[in-house]
């Protein structure tokens, strides 16, 4: 038994309904989340990430498979018996209770003495910097403050695992950035395992120790933000995380011949036949001089620090390049330019 594992989901599947109308929310997902880890489940809406979270919380019972918490099977335990707490997307604060009563709710239900509850409430409210709001009602607080109350309420009983269901999606950009670093700080201070659900890839990349990318009820890839961004294993992951150019080609003589007829010396691991190359816009450089390949600029978008050029290659396929705006050479739509691809950084995907 590996004692470093907080949550171990084995072959978890969830099907809603039955017969012809059945909907598979989760196919067959296995995942191990380490203790003290900031783990993010990332995917578009409807990919099953929230269903998996609800199975861990106990709000849903998986149709198949099992979920273990620190080695104990909790698959069929009701939510109120799991040392797991949730921060809800809608916050779900109790409107008839004060901030302090909300935060103390979990401990009170577990039968803690009133003095211990009060002490824990003070400590956690200090942690989220809401000491002065203890006696307010939730509707007297701003969205950001309500968010912090929801967080405090879930942290107060000191759960083994904290589940966060898109908790930042209702906040504006500035507040969201603040809360992102706030969450990182809280996670570091409490040492609690965080499982964070989001559809925002930037949020996932900046906050997580590891990310699990999900699509259509399946877990496609698990890895560090670097792994996921630099070495996507599927076209979906490469497309979903950041911007990516896709070029079709086929393996020839340890290189890949793309549609323009050019050969690229990309890193191959025994692939043969048709492949897809995933090329990040920052790996494409543009020069006015002759280069490996050439193309025509069809669109230029100034983005502040960068400029995005869309280049039409000889065979008509588009390629987006991201060039730092401070670079001396600038190009206009219609210019014919030399194009070079940093082949070593290209990711080869099975077609």
């Amino acid at each position, binding site marked *: 038994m590996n004692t470093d594992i907080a949550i171990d989901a084995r072959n978890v599947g969830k099907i809603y309904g039955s017969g012809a109308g059945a909907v598979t929310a989760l196919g067959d997902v296995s995942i191990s989340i380490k203790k003290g880890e900031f783990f993010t489940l990332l995917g578009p809406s409807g990919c099953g990430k929230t269903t998996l979270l609800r199975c861990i919380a106990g*709000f849903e019972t998986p149709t198949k498979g099992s979920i273990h918490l620190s080695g104990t099977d909790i698959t069929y335990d009701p939510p109120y018996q799991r040392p797991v*707490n949730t921060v*809800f997307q809608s916050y*779900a604060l*109790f409107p*008839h209770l004060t901030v302090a009563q909300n935060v103390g709710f979990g401990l009170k239900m577990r039968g803690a003495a009133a003095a211990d509850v009060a002490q824990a409430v003070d400590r956690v409210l200090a942690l989220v910097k809401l000491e002065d709001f203890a006696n307010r009602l939730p509707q007297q607080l701003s969205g950001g403050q309500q968010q912090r109350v929801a967080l405090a309420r879930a942290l107060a009983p000191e759960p083994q695992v904290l589940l966060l269901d898109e908790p930042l999606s209702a906040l504006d950009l500035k507040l969201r950035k603040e809360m992102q670093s706030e969450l990182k700080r809280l996670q570091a201070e409490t040492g609690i395992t965080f499982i964070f659900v989001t559809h925002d890839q930037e949020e996932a990349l900046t906050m997580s120790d590891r990310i699990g990318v999900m699509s259509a009820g399946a877990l496609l890839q698990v890895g560090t933000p670097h792994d996921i961004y630099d070495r996507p294993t599927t076209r979906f992951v490469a497309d979903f995380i950041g911007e990516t150019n896709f070029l079709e080609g086929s393996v020839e003589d340890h290189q890949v011949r793309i549609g323009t007829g050019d050969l690229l010396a990309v890193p191959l691991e025994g692939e043969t036949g048709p492949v897809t190359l995933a090329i990040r816009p920052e790996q494409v450089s543009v020069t006015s001089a002759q280069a490996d390949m050439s193309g025509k600029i069809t669109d230029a978008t100034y983005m502040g620090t960068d400029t995005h050029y869309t280049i039409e290659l000889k065979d008509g396929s588009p390629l987006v390049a991201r060039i730092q705006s401070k670079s001396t050479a600038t190009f206009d739509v219609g210019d014919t330019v030399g194009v070079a691809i940093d082949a070593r950084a290209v990711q080869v995907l099975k077609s």
Partner: protein
Amino acid sequence: MGKTRAFDVTTLPGFTFIAILAFVLLYAPIVTLVIYSFNGGNSVNQWGGFSLEWYAVAAQNEAVQDATARSLIIAVWASVISTALATMAALGTTRRGKFTGQTVIYVIINQPLMVPEIVTAVALLIFFSSVKVATGYSGLGYLILAHSAFCIPFAYLPIKARLEGMDTTMETAAADLYATPLQTFRYVTLPLLLPGVIAGAMLAFIISLDNVIITEFVKSAGQDTLPTYMLGQLRRALTPEVNAISTALLALTILILTLFVFVTKKRG
């Protein structure tokens, strides 16, 4: 006409006339009743000067005092019992998935609204008389039970409406925070449901207070409620005493209905 306007009933010919006529027909008798409750004379339709005499007569009439007390006892018990049952029924029909027989359950709960009251009254009369023979008991229990039964749908509807409007994430959050189903009900569902429960109880109270038909059939000798007492007075000469009792009943009803509106509006 270039633009099409939204249909507005107030622009139809005769709207004002019909509206005023409707209000007059609805309220003129009641206003007359209230005015004659202050009549100094002995008639319910001949004015003999302003007086509070009939209120004093009613208040000092022992039969009225008894009937009032009985009405209130029955109404309190019936509203408590029917609201408790209605709350359970509302939880059962809203806090779980769709189930087979759901429509049948709705029909059963709302049965008193649909079955002709006189049928229920006759059925209860026959049923309770055999129970009376079997047990020997002839107290107020029969009336309380009968009132509780027909009050259930009136208590059920506002409670169900409130439950359906409530965010179930609250209950999920409570369960997530270690509250057992019973604790979730006690600390989250019930406090949030309270306006609906109070509204349901008030409605049940008024419905019980006002009931004539079922009461008339179920009551034993000497168990007159205020409405059946007034009905009994019809057989004798009517005095403005009946107006005074009616006006008092009307005032109580208006008071409770006003509270009902406030309770359902607040925190809604």
